[in-house]
């Protein structure tokens, strides 16, 4: 029982701490790639603390409620991951959180927020099928949706599911809000929709969505570790390489539009998944 | 000025401008200068193969000038600008901001005129109401 409590606590702490550090590292690495010095490592924490200290101002109560629901769902998803729960359940909870974020944005009347919400729905529509296919891949390989079974599998999954890892990369790029998929909102509020989805969230509620985002980042990185679950070094190397590539892609592409995203992510993503799944089935 | 300047009257203006368009001239811009208390001087600058040609129109402030924006769409901004700053009316503008392109509703009209400055309350008078009636129907949209 105490073990469960410890795991829950781990999940709740790891989300903001690891997520914030990853975000800080991301900003430093991005700055270096652009030949800048960049902010200190702890800058994301400073930002969030500053936001939390601000006077709460809401457009309507719904939006505040949605922000709380989003962070709750995101943290529950991560806690479930730490508890080695069912992958399908985790993704379901995570999707609920994402939808609450959209509902919150839709509850305001700002056209930027509205259009951002529509685009976010399209993004969810593009990455959710891919995530399900990745989970199906795990099932076909291990015969189980449980994380305990997947972590106990003796061989690195990447060798069997290389294409599905690329597919997960697409989902990861969308989830991390990186170019070319930073459509609904992006990190620097410098696009045609201002901050898109998050335009009308402000102060502490914006901080909540940011912390919720960190939970999701840690969760997605956790899913990446499943592909090399046999050794700690393998996991670390895989994570480092994956994240470096994410930042690199962010820096070498421009933002695309949602039509391109749908056709590209579905076209390439579904093809790659199917090829991988058929290969698994044959092998 | 080095280039050729041709004087035109308000009646002949649109015809002359249309002729220039047929000849392949491009509208560069309009320049408005206040001559004295009741007259404005408008220069229409045209360009063809890097050569300039000017039309000069001396317009009394009280009378409206026919707009050339139906001929050259590009004239709409500058004609609205002159309307804002010099208080001159252009008739038949394709998009008529009615003096609010740069200025706010409550702003004084004709800020660029030295000799006369119509005050805001004068504008509210019957003349302004008449102005509003005779405006272009498009104006309602903005």
């Amino acid at each position: 029982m105490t073990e469960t409590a410890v795991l829950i606590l781990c999940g709740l702490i790891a989300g903001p701490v690891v997520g914030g550090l990853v975000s800080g590292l991301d900003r430093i690495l991005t700055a270096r790639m652009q030949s800048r010095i960049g902010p200190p490592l702890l800058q994301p924490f400073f930002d969030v603390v500053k936001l939390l200290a601000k006077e709460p101002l809401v457009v309507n109560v719904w939006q505040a409620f949605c922000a709380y629901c989003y962070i709750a769902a995101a943290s529950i998803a991560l806690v479930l991951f730490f508890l080695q729960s069912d992958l399908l359940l985790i993704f379901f909870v995570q999707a609920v959180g994402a939808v609450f974020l959209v509902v919150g944005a839709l509850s305001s009347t700002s056209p930027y927020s509205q259009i951002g919400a529509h685009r976010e729905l399209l993004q969810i529509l593009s990455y959710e099928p891919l995530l399900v296919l990745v989970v199906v891949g795990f099932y076909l390989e291990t015969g189980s949706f449980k994380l305990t079974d997947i972590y106990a599998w003796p061989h690195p999954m990447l060798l069997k599911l290389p294409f599905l890892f690329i597919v997960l990369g697409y989902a990861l790029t969308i989830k991390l809000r990186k170019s070319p998929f930073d459509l609904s909102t992006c990190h620097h509020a410098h696009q045609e929709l201002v901050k898109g989805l998050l335009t009308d969230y402000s102060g502490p509620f914006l901080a909540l969505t940011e912390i919720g985002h960190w939970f999701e980042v840690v969760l997605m990185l956790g899913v990446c570790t499943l592909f090399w679950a046999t050794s700690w070094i393998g996991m670390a190397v895989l994570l480092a390489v994956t994240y470096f590539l994410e930042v690199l892609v962010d820096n070498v592409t421009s933002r695309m539009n949602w039509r391109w995203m749908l056709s590209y992510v579905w076209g390439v993503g579904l093809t790659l998944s199917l090829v991988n799944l058929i290969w698994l089935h044959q092998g | 000025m080095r280039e050729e300047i041709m004087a035109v009257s308000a009646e002949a203006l649109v015809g002359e401008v249309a002729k220039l368009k047929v000849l392949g001239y491009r509208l560069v811009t309009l320049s408005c200068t206040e001559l004295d208390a009741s007259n404005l001087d408008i220069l229409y600058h045209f360009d063809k193969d890097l050569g300039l040609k000017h039309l000069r129109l001396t317009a009394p402030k009280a009378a409206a000038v026919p707009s050339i924006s139906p001929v050259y769409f590009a004239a709409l901004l500058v004609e609205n600008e002159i309307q804002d700053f010099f208080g001159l009316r252009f008739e038949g503008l394709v998009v008529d901001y009615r003096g609010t392109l740069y200025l706010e509703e409550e702003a004084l009209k004709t800020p660029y005129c030295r000799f006369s400055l119509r005050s805001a309350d004068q504008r509210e008078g019957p003349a302004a109401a008449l102005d509003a009636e005779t405006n272009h129907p498009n104006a309602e949209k903005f």
Partner: protein
Amino acid sequence: MRKTVIPFGPQHPVLPEPIHLKLTVEDERIIEAIPNLGYVHRGLERLADIRDFHQMIQVVERVCGICSVIHALCYCQGIEEIMGVEVPPRARYLRVMWSELHRIQSHLLWLGLFADSFGFESLFMQFWRVREKIMDISEATTGNRVIVSVNVIGGVRRNPDPEQIRWVLAQIDWVEAELQRLEDTMLEDYTVKKRTVGKGVLTRQQAYELGAVGPVLRGSGVAQDARQTGYAAYGELHFEPVVETDGDCYARNKVRFRETLASIDLIRRAIHRLPDGEVRTKIKGIKPPQGETVNRVEQPRGELLYYLKGSGQKTLDRVRIRTPTFANIPPLLVMLPGHFLSDVPVVTLSIDPCISCTER
């Protein structure tokens, strides 16, 4: 989705300056765009009533920070023409050098902002990094970074020594090398092309009739550049305008990129032929300007026109400034409808809007 009106600006993070576009959209597709101006109007033309014609140089420089040298140059040329002042040859060549430096920095600024408009932040940073070198050259040779205040009636105020000229050449070589490194990305990258090719198409006919100027006009295939008139020393430098024919955002992008390289070349040629001698004609004792003139020069954004009228007094009767963005707004209104909201920043920035210029 029903029709929505999106207030694009006046304070919008994508737009560097405050223009307000009322966009009527249907399902993210633009149906109509109506501009509204006047957010930064300063009435600089009216300042001619209280500032004398020498002080107006500093005033017109502030019409637009990015092309200050060229504004001052146009104004000074106009006054020189009215007063019949001959400018020394060295000053004419130096004016070309500083004008082209300004064109490079303006184009680099634009290339960065354009990259940012389609969400390519790292490319934005790279262009601005290169631009910094040009600002350094400005600062070292004229004394100021942006509004350099180097033109006067009758010549220029600074005379770079040979060592400084050599230093400028070396810096320019560095800029060219850096630009060539970015050329491949800006002109050939898949995502960049995807966002710019076929966007905001303006046919040759439309561009000409709507009075487009500068890279917008040249991107549509009309070879017109005020530098062809040979003002300052351009007539002696065998200037050729850069022309593209597609008329879309990509073509305008390409025109500006190629013009930047062409400007580097022009600076080299100007420095190579730089004559010795005086840089400033004394105008003491000549009567204040009496008469009127129209002067045109080529700004980075396009053709700039000054109408000046003086009546022999210290203050001018009229200073009328027609800036290039003013001429490029009607084409923008024609280009926007039919595009998606995500293309609005790209199309809007493709005319290189300088709203402070426009509103003066």
